[in-house]
């Protein structure tokens, strides 16, 4: 039976959903290309060490036996680009784009797919805010272009949680335990961990810190309870700058803040962002990660980027009413004319039946419209 079965966690992609996926990838790639991003393709197979230090959540990696060092099917597309930057002598600043599949092993028999398609960009060598803005603008514009009318962009900062924790009058390991309960959103444990701080000036703020996410104004109002804390004012000013930018250039996106989560990956150093629609998975995620190259080289390099979860996009993009397929029947002398006819119509394809009757039968079976070029003496395709 195994040759008729798919391995767990995989699927075939076909039909209208695959056509839409291909179209979405094409739209994204065209936009990246038009905006001057150079495409880069890295191998599906990499050494496991490339991904050292990456936080994969509870998802595993596909490992392959190799003669000397362990190989994996890449679980991520950003770390390989860091490897490329570090080893090929490309001189920054550089703007790269990519699309491809990543492989993350879900728990067996839980319905998750292990092969996920991503498409994204990396802007390397620009430490300024314009790099972050170009990422957000492109991601927002593409969502709009793909007819996702309502979506939320959630902003965060990799330094906020640690800045507040550093200011709390707590010793280790109490500080680490508090952070763990906060990040895990384990309210029962969290309430126990903040008990020693009940008389500190932070008490009011701490009470609701695990809920410090949501609409921009609500979160900012809540942050006002926070006593003056080194580093926090600059982070908040930066987040407000980004929010104002989005309001101006991506007005259909609702902007929210999350100031109680950890950075998505250990290499994040500043802004982080995620986007989601009313239902479904995250549409895109990204941020600033100036520590990206840290596991490959001594010299840090500014980097900003984001990736679309293309499968989540496919699920969120509204389905257009497709016009019925056209089957184009033609004679041996009409090959070029028939090809031209098809090229101009997105739902047309050549019918390779050997007789008009067979072509009609095929059209009836597929509920397609038959276009008979053979009855036209001269075809004006």
């Amino acid at each position, binding site marked *: 039976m195994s040759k008729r079965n798919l391995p767990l966690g995989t699927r075939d992609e076909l039909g209208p959903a695959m056509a839409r996926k291909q179209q979405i990838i094409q739209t994204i790639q065209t936009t990246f290309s038009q905006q001057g991003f150079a495409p880069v393709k890295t191998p599906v197979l990499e050494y496991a060490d490339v991904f050292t230090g990456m936080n994969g959540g509870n998802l595993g990696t596909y490992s392959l036996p190799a003669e000397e060092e362990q190989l994996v099917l890449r679980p991520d597309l950003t770390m390989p680009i860091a490897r490329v930057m570090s080893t090929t002598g490309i001189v920054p600043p550089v703007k790269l784009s990519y699309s491809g599949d990543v492989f993350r092993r879900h728990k067996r028999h*839980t319905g998750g797919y292990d092969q996920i398609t991503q498409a994204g960009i990396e802007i390397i060598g620009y430490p300024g805010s314009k790099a972050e803005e170009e990422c957000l603008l492109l991601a927002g514009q593409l969502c709009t272009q793909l007819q996702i009318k309502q979506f939320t962009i959630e902003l965060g900062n990799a330094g906020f949680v640690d800045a507040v924790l550093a200011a709390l009058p707590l010793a280790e390991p109490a500080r680490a335990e508090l952070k763990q309960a906060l990040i895990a959103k384990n309210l029962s444990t969290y309430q126990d961990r903040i008990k020693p701080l009940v008389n500190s000036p932070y008490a009011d703020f701490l009470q609701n810190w695990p809920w410090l996410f949501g609409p921009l104004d609500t979160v900012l109002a809540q942050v006002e309870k926070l006593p003056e804390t080194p580093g926090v004012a600059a982070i908040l000013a930066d987040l407000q700058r980004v929010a104002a930018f989005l309001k101006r250039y991506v007005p259909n996106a609702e902007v929210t803040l999350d100031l109680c989560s950890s950075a998505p990956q250990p290499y994040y150093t500043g802004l982080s962002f995620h986007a*989601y629609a009313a239902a479904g*998975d995250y549409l895109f995620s990204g941020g600033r990660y100036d520590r990206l190259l840290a596991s490959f080289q001594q010299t840090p390099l500014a980097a900003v980027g984001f990736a679309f979860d293309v499968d989540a996009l496919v699920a969120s993009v509204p389905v257009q009413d497709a016009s019925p397929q056209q089957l184009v029947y033609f004679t041996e002398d009409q090959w070029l004319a028939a090809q031209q006819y098809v090229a101009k119509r997105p739902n047309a394809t050549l019918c390779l039946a050997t007789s008009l009757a067979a072509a009609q039968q095929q059209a009836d079976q597929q509920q397609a419209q038959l276009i008979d070029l053979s009855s036209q003496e001269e075809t004006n395709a």
Partner: protein
Amino acid sequence: MLNIALTKGRTEQDVLPLLKQAGVDTVPIENKGRKLIFTDRDRYRTILAKGPDVLTYLNRGSVDIGIVGSDILTEQENDQPDMLDLQVSKCHFVLASTSAFNPDTPRRLIIASKYPHITQTYFDTIGTDVEIIKIEGSVELAPLIGMADAIVDIVETGTTLRENHLQVYNRLQDCSAHLVVNRLALKQKRAEVYQLITNLQKCIQAK
């Protein structure tokens, strides 16, 4: 609309009074017959499911909230936000066996359990290598018929152990019903989740 998966059986019975106090209309669930899905106006849709399945529904995003024992959360290595200990359906894990059991027997012990992950973690903590056999139910049988040296199992009062002439050699972690939230649903339905959790916290504190 918040979608909730509630573990059926004892957790369901223990948690329903809390949900009722927190403002959920639980009458349809109390009179459920053979139904598995219950709707409270446009506010809540509750489904009843087995404990491990609650996490499957939650991880797939089919429900926003799961109410499930912390034993299952630990065993399944849950990584969705485990937000609230509801402090009902309390029980604990034990290492138990017959009176003839000697934990210091100089050989690799065989331990039977429905919870291999929790068992492994416990023996890793005390630095002992054991062989674990997974048993799906009536774990007490394993030492009685000589298949295992001891068992790691969940107990509430210990009556089943006593009736089968098994004794407790060590008490492991406590467990209770917890409320777990799908990470993305927490963002997408923040206000509704906040309301339910805050109401439940008040009920727990008032107890």
